Structures are given as structure tokens and as C-alpha cells.
């Protein structure tokens, strides 16, 4: 099986805090991979390392077989690897459709492309994706006026608009109304199956991640604790201890 992302022996420290220590994992192409672990176990740090937000101390990160640990955030994003933020980030003063339009892939954007107008098909695509996440009725509203959960959905739709190969989602269901979570799980799965996007998800909601992921990695204290299919992880004594604080 091809791995889209390969993390090899990655370490990252902030001052005296060893946020990630010697972590190795692989995200297989076309699958949904989960990343769990207690608060402060280094999940978001690992995400930030992968997308180039900060340099890593040692190790290597491969994307489709190419080293990317020395690239910067926008360059990695243009390769087709996108992330969403734990603290949702959207363009607050622009309406939803504009948020979507500016999220088109910038992979092949030549210099003069920035002076082109938007084609009507793009607006249509933007509206279809807003429909897909259930925000069609709010498409002309200022994104900053949406509720937190709606902003999360918008951020997800923006990511889809970018047609990524891999999407790294940092707690996609945090702050979302429990009744909406099922809908979101369904949409994430469809993004995976229908659009063929590989997903790598940080999630605290065990019901969500066990329901979706093909493989789950568990971090604790900055180190990789366990990995395997959801059933195995759920019953792994080390994982249970880590969550209950016995570690």
C-alpha cells in the first residue's frame, strides 16, 4: 500500500518541552487515518511539523516520496496537502462564496493568473460545495457572522474547494452540535470515498474516530504509544491508561 505521508523519526522540542520524540508513522493513500492522544500529547505539533509550520529538529517527512520537511507552509499546501485549524480560521470579512472562491487550488497558478476574473463554473462549484456542507442558504452572509460550528463546516468546504490530495483535520467535530456530528461524519466519509481525498484526523471524540478511521495512531507525552485498527486500539491497555492518566 502506498503511503502519502511518511513521518520518520521526527522530533521537535520547544525549549525544554519535548513535544514530539522520535515519531514514525505512515498515512496510506485513499484511507482515513486517525491520530488520538490526551491533551498536550503532541498531536497538533506533529500536524504543524508535517505542514511546514515550524522546522523539525530531526527526522524526515515524505509526501508522495519527496522530502518536504524543508518546505514552507504555502509550498506544501500547493503540493496538495492542506490542513484545517483547531481554532477555526476563515476570512471573517468576506462572504461564504468569496471564502470559497479564493480557496481554489493555487498549484498551477501562473503569475498572470492573479489578474483573472472568476469563471461562472467556479461560483457554481463553490455553491455546490456549500450545499454539500449545508451552508447554501448562508452563502451570501459574512463568514465572520456564522456560528463557530458553521465556520468549521465552511472551513471544511474551503478545504474541499482546494481539491487536496491529503487533508489534515485538527479536531473537526470540536464545538459542533452533537446532532450535527453524524452529518459531519457522513460528509467526511464522502469526501474520502467520493472525492478520493486521503484524510488524517486528530480527534478527541472516540465515537467519531473509531467509526471512521481505518488506522489509528495514539500519542502520549510526545511519543507514539500504539497504532493499529480501531478495535485493537480501543482495547489496548496502554491507550486506556494514557487517557485515564495512569501513564
Amino acid at each position: 500500500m502506498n503511503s502519502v505521508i511518511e513521518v520518520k523519526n521526527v522530533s521537535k522540542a520547544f525549549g525544554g518541552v519535548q513535544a514530539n520524540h522520535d515519531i514514525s508513522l505512515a498515512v496510506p493513500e485513499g484511507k482515513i487515518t486517525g491520530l488520538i492522544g490526551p491533551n498536550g500529547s503532541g498531536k497538533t505539533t506533529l500536524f504543524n511539523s508535517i505542514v511546514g509550520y515550524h522546522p523539525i529538529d530531526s527526522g524526515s517527512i515524505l509526501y508522495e516520496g519527496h522530502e518536504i520537511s524543508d518546505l514552507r507552509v504555502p509550498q506544501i499546501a500547493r503540493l496538495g496537502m492542506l490542513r484545517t485549524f483547531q481554532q477555526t480560521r476563515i476570512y471573517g470579512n468576506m462572504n461564504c462564496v468569496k471564502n470559497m472562491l479564493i480557496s481554489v487550488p493555487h498549484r498551477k497558478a501562473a503569475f498572470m493568473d492573479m489578474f483573472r476574473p472568476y469563471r461562472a463554473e467556479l461560483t457554481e462549484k463553490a455553491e455546490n460545495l456549500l450545499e454539500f456542507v449545508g451552508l447554501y442558504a448562508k452563502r451570501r452572509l459574512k463568514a465572520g457572522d456564522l456560528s463557530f460550528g458553521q465556520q468549521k463546516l465552511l472551513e471544511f468546504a474551503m478545504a474541499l474547494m482546494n481539491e487536496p490530495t491529503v487533508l489534515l483535520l485538527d479536531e473537526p467535530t470540536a464545538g459542533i452540535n452533537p446532532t450535527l456530528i453524524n452529518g459531519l461524519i457522513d460528509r467526511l466519509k464522502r469526501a474520502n470515498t467520493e472525492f478520493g481525498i486521503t484524510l488524517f484526523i486528530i480527534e478527541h471524540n472516540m465515537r467519531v474516530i473509531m467509526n471512521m478511521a481505518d488506522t489509528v495512531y495514539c500519542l502520549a507525552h510526545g511519543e507514539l504509544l500504539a497504532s493499529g485498527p480501531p478495535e485493537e486500539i480501543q482495547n489496548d491497555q496502554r491507550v486506556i491508561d494514557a487517557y485515564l492518566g495512569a501513564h
Partner: protein
Amino acid sequence: MHVDRTPWYVYAAVLAAGILAPIVFPAYTTQIALLWLMILFALTWDILGGQMGYNSLGNIFFFGAGVYISAVVQIGIFTDVGAYTSARGGEQLVLGYFDYFGSLFAGMGAAAIGAALLAIVLGWVLLGLRGPYFAIGTLGLALSARELAGAWEWIGGGTGVPMPIYPGLPHEKSVVFYIAYFIMAIVTFLTVRWLYSTRFGLAINAIRDDEEKAEAMGIHTTRHKVVAWAVAAFFLGMSGAAFGNIIGYVEPQEVAFPTVTFGIFMVVMSLLGGKGTLWGPVIGATLFHIIKEATWTYMLGWQWVALGVLIVVNVVFFQQGILGWVQEKWPERFGLVVEEDPGEDQTAGAAAE
């Protein structure tokens, strides 16, 4: 992607006002020409300050660079610049119409392109600064340029450079430069209007709202920021070239780098009219210029106090500016929707291909 909903008669009225003003008020031709310059200032400042969220306090640098580039080109065509400036105005250039306008156009072109190139080079460095650091960094740029120009003997130092003498009558000169500023303001307006309708407009808005998110989405942020500044610098440089010729004398403090007057005016005018809007800077500049000219005439001695009060009231009570306030009050007139629109085919579903 701002759809310009301005009715045609607004454009017609502005055009008519621009053409009729110097005919109806011939004595005020230069003051009205400066109004068009103020509009150009506010429009170019707003590209970064309003649309991209980068508050520059040093855009006047590109104006001053234009003043000097044009002076050097206009004089350099006919004589040695160093010898000319060291004569301290002893041999001012007297040219015929053909030479005057030929060198003027060359100077304006060089000033526009030169200023844009300076913006590209400086932008790579300064546009890495965010928020207040960018504001202070650009202010430093303008102030240090002023000091450098004052110390550089080749371009006249603090004494400055006398510009070539206009070959015709004084009023004819006012009309010529009136037309120049009128056209420049229109071209600037049309350029930013077009820019804001392209992907570029949305991208710089995205940078304003959340630059880190824009980077994470793969937008070429540096490219957009540098181009935005270069566009502003292009028009500022060109307007500076004309300004040196209107005054007839180029020196760093009052003509080329008037940081505390023009440099601050451009910020104030955009804020007054409503930053981040197409017409806001135009409205702000017009109102500001009229208030300024009126206070200069009727409240001499108190004019700076009056302007200061205007700035304080604007910043403290009225941050969104005139057009911003109007847009908040009547959003639907500007195509800003505040209510949900269920649309016609909500049940079509799953249309995402």
C-alpha cells in the same frame, strides 16, 4: 471580487465635475488639481491599508522617489545633473515645448516604473513585517529617504533642484497639470476597480482577514503583497513626477517627502471615507481637501487644530468612515446580504461533483 454597482450617472457627474471645475473656477485650477492628487493618494493607500490590511505610513516614499527620479531624468537628458545641481539654480533649464513635454513624459514614465521597482525590492523585505511593525518600518523608510535625499549632493542635497521652466504662461501650466492629475486619478481609480474585480482583489482581502490561513491554503501571499505595493508605487511615483514640475523646485522636506502632511493625509482620507471600499477613498479625499482648503482660508492659524480634531473624531467615534457607515446602515443597497437566502434548489443536494 467586488462587483461595482455604481450607477452610470455617478461616473458621468464625476467626469463632468472634473471637466467643468477648472473652467468655472479658473483661479482655483491648481487647488482642484491637488484634489485629484489627494484622490490618487487615498486610492493607492487603500490598496494596502484598506484592502490588504497593511497600514503603511511610508507610501509618501514612492511619491518622493518619483519626484527625484523624474527630476534627474528631465535634467539629465539635457545636461550633467551633478554640474546643474551644484550651480544652485544659477542655470535653470529653459526648454521649448517639444523638449519640455518630451522630457516630462520620459521623467514621468521613469518615475512610475522606478517607484514600482523600488516597491518590489523593498516589499520583499518590509512586507514580511506585520501589523504595527509594518507601519513603523514604512515610516522609517520615508523618514530615512528624506534624510538621505537631503544629504546627497548630486541631487542637490537640502537645497534641492530647480526644475525646467514651463515654456508657456502660468495659467496654461496649471491647466496642463490639472489635466495630468485628472487623468492620473481616473486611471488609478479604473485600475483599482479592475484589480478588485479579479482574483487579486479576493486574495488581498484574504490576506487582510487571516494571512496565516491564506498561506495554509497555498495562496502566493508574498507575490500578491509585492504586486499590491508596486501598483500603489507606480501611480504615486508618476504623481510625484508631476508634482515636482508644478512646484518648479524639488527639495526633500516640503516637496518630495512631506511625511507629516501628504504622508499622513493619505491615511486620514482613506479612513475618513471608509477604508476597504472602492469609493470611500474618493469621498474621503474630496471632503478632506475641501475642509483643508476652507480651514486654511477661514481659520488660518487654527488649521492644524481643526485637522487634528477631524482625525481624532474620525478615529475615535467613526472608524468605519463615511462609506463604511452608510454600508452598515443600508447594506442591501450595496449588495451585502444580511439575511439567509434559502435559494431555489435546496433539495437538489449532493450536487458536489
